[in-house]
């Protein structure tokens, strides 16, 4: 495959206006200077109430590459994507796009609710620049991929939002794009469809498409992208490998946001209260993938109480439950005395991929929580220092039996 550059972005900036009235008025002014054919010098200054939504971003993307665009809400990711799609023009800099672009920014935009799925496929495909003959050739493929064989002749207004998105995605990827722009579009589908989409995007990439993906889902980005562009306040602060980008992303997230979040999450109180939780690594300075850790819990109780177990849940930054650990003191439970007490839970070889986790949990008695907090502690798991892949490969000792010949088969 040739390493042809499909997307070339050079020092691109875009400004937006906070105030609606001013924004409309600036629109009129821009229209005027557009008609007079002005060049862009005066565009690179901010007027009152304006701010840079995207500032001086540059990158390149070759055939067969996938770029993950990450950053917090309002970092300018979508604006950048809209400029790549040619919906809005940059205020400075230049964008060069080679080939047919398929944007999955809003799946099914342009669907008419009263028309059937069949009719909408033709309309939508021609919006994406696909002609009638090509659609007829691909029609069955589109319907099958979307899994809508039974609903293709009912009006689109009767579709669920997932079906809507499925049909939109299916049309967009069947239009032979050279460049695919995806903006959180996969978030609405169910698991099965998301996997189908990831495979499909991967396949298009192997066939030589360049993909730009905006997502907050770290796992998804890790699955499809090779490189990341991290954006903050409109500026690209890092264009690098996935690990570096996500590490920086999480660090920025911590400094600015997480610390100021609700002190102890959502707390349910009972006869017992957890006052502090600390997580330490027993073998090194930082907690990394595969280290042995100790969770130190200090709790208070007014009258003392009996509890069966302490449950600890690990949530990842995309809000998925990754692991639940129950400490039940070998089935005896804990007798908590009145006043403050402290106990420790030891976890060996922490099998969590590098990333930021939220620890939730609490004390349980007969299956009911006596105390519960949605955020006991934030935990940052670093990549294993001796293993630089960083994508979460835990090396465990495994016993290998064999090779043993299998009868009757030529394996």
């Amino acid at each position, binding site marked *: 495959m040739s390493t042809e550059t*499909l997307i070339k972005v050079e020092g691109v900036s875009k400004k*937006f206006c906070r105030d609606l009235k001013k*924004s*409309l008025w600036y*629109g*009129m002014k*821009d*229209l005027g*200077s*557009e*008609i*007079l*054919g*002005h*060049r*862009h010098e005066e*565009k690179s200054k901010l007027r009152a109430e304006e701010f840079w939504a995207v500032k001086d971003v540059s990158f390149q993307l070759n055939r067969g590459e996938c770029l993950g665009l990450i950053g917090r809400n309002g970092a300018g990711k*979508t604006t950048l994507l*809209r400029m790549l*799609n*040619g*919906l*809005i*023009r*940059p205020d*400075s*800099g*230049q*964008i*060069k*796009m*080679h*080939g*047919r*672009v398929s*944007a999955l*920014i*809003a799946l099914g*935009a*342009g669907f*008419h609710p*009263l*028309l059937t799925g069949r*009719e909408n496929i033709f*309309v939508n495909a*021609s*919006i*994406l*620049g696909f*002609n*009638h003959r*090509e659609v007829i050739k*691909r029609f069955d493929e589109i319907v099958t991929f979307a899994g809508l064989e039974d609903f293709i002749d009912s009006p689109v207004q009767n579709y669920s939002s997932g079906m809507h998105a499925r049909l939109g995605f299916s049309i967009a*990827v*069947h239009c*032979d794009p*050279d460049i695919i722009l995806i903006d959180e579009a996969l978030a609405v589908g169910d698991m099965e469809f998301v996997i189908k989409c990831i495979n*499909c995007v991967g396949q*298009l990439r192997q*066939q030589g498409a360049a993909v730009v993906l905006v997502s907050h889902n770290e796992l998804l980005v890790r699955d499809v992208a090779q490189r990341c562009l991290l954006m903050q306040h409109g500026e690209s602060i890092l264009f690098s490998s996935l690990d570096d980008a996500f590490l920086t992303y999480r660090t920025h997230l911590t400094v600015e946001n997480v610390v100021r979040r609700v002190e102890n999450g959502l707390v349910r109180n009972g006869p017992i209260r957890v006052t502090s939780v600390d997580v330490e690594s027993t073998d090194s300075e930082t907690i990394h993938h595969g280290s042995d850790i100790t969770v130190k819990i200090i709790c208070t109780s007014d009258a003392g109480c009996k509890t069966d177990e302490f449950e600890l849940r690990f949530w990842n930054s995309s809000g998925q439950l990754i692991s639940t650990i129950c400490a039940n003191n070998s089935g005896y439970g804990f007798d908590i005395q009145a006043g403050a007490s402290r106990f420790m839970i030891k976890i060996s070889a922490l099998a969590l991929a590098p990333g930021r986790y939220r620890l939730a949990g609490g004390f349980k008695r007969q299956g009911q929580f006596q105390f519960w907090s949605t955020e006991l502690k934030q935990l940052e798991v670093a990549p294993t220092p001796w293993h630089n892949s960083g994508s979460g490969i835990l090396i465990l000792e495994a016993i290998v039996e064999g090779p043993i010949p299998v009868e009757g088969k030529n394996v």
Partner: protein
Amino acid sequence: MQRTTDKGPLPIITYTPDSSLVSPGKMLRDMFRDLLASRELAWRLAVRDISAQYRQAFLGILWAFILPLANTLTWIFLCETGIISVKETALPYPVYVFSGSMLWAILMDAVNAPLQQTNAAKAMLAKLNFPRESLVISGVYQTVFNAGIKIFLLLAVLTFLGIAPGWHLLLFPLGLLSLVLVGTAIGLLLTPVGVLYSDIGKGLPLLMQFLMYLTPVVFPMPKSGIAATIYAINPLTPIILTSRNWLTGMPSESLPGYILVNILALFLLVAVWILFRLAMPILIERMSS
């Protein structure tokens, strides 16, 4: 997911902050490329809108001519009861009003279409990149479709009333074309500002109502006074008069004016087309994403 089409050299698109007027040659090429590319899409959008429009309406295609019909009945009523008195017309007054109202309604449709189409497609415009011309062309298709219904009805009524159009009827498609041309040019001129400020969309029906009384739609041409001058310089006058004359078999009285207005409208249309193209990215930026 096998690629079926074997594409030639990749199309390269460059986005820069410069106004496209800086390189007029490239702009003209782009304009005609997009116009060509929007043929099929425009057709699909028109079919989509027309079939959806009549699918949800109980009265269906009646909506294409209910307004001009009501207008006609109002004026016939006003005239017959003597509330207002209208000067003698060469045609019977009901025929004069009915044909005038129908033609005016076609012009109105054409004026409204570009802004209406653009506003209705806001969600699509903010999220998808497609040749924007297709919206305007789709609007023209829909205007022509609705005009077809009106003219069919008009011809049926004329025949019933004993008005024979004669061979002039063959010229009428030209008249229809100029109604659409003039209407689209005016409508497209208002679109860029109309998308930004809703005042235009709200004020337009008011303005058109007023313009109707300055055009020989329900009144015949005044012979003298200030009104005569206004009617005479109103560029819409020759369009309406000539179309009506062709339709009803009357001699065409204002042919030079008609040709002049059409040529001017053609120039205006090209100019506002450029304006529309320049304006689109600025407008989309200010639509919600």
